[in-house]
């Protein structure tokens, strides 16, 4: 299980490949890896989005993400989990979040990946502030995930 906050852009597909390669125990063990990558769109609520600042609660954010992953590990038979989340200044098109779950069979990976992402959205203390052509605004809620 690995959880990271990054204040610079990251390549989610490179991270996935590197993580699998580094986890020697995974090779040959997993039959399924389900992933979610969320990226910053350049349009929201009809307005052009020029960028975003992601604030978090240092210490609590990592702790809550850890708890979310631990809960998933207790609910599904997972071989590994990876969560990478951006903080700081983000440009449109850049990945914001990567969630991945590895398991022997697809059901656990699919279900855990989805649940991890939904729990992250509703519990991990992050806050998005959009930068628009004519100012800034805080995102005040999440769209429905289910």
């Amino acid at each position, binding site marked *: 299980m690995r959880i990271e906050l990054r204040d610079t852009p990251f390549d989610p597909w490179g991270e996935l490949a590197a993580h699998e390669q580094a986890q020697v125990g995974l090779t040959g063990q997993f039959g399924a890896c389900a992933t979610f990558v*969320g990226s910053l769109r350049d349009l929201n609520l009809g307005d052009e989005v020029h960028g975003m600042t*992601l*604030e*978090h*609660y240092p*210490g*609590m*954010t990592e*702790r*809550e993400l850890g708890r979310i992953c631990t809960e998933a590990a207790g609910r599904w038979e997972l071989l590994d989990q990876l969560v990478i*989340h951006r903080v700081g200044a983000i440009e449109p098109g850049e990945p*914001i*979040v990567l969630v991945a779950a590895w398991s022997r069979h697809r059901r656990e990976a699919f279900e855990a990946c989805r649940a991890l*992402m939904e729990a*992250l*959205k*509703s*519990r*991990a*203390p*992050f*806050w*998005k*502030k959009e930068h628009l052509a004519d100012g800034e605004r*805080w*995102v*005040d*809620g*999440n769209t429905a995930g289910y």
Partner: protein
Amino acid sequence: MSVTVKFFASLKEQLGCDGATVEIGEVATAADIWLQATGGKPMPPNILVSINLEYCDRNCPVKPGDEVGFFPPVTGG
């Protein structure tokens, strides 16, 4: 007998500060800490509360040395 208070995101901007240190008596709740830290402002109903990096109810007791966080609904991912 002090408590560290932290505000985040839009709440931090509305209050004009990112936190405070407040003195407490022997019995205090997170809601009491809010009132002290904000000079008696009513707490908006959607505000989330944490004590020592754990989510809690606004009526949870706070001890000296605790860190109490107040923040709006989260929007990560």
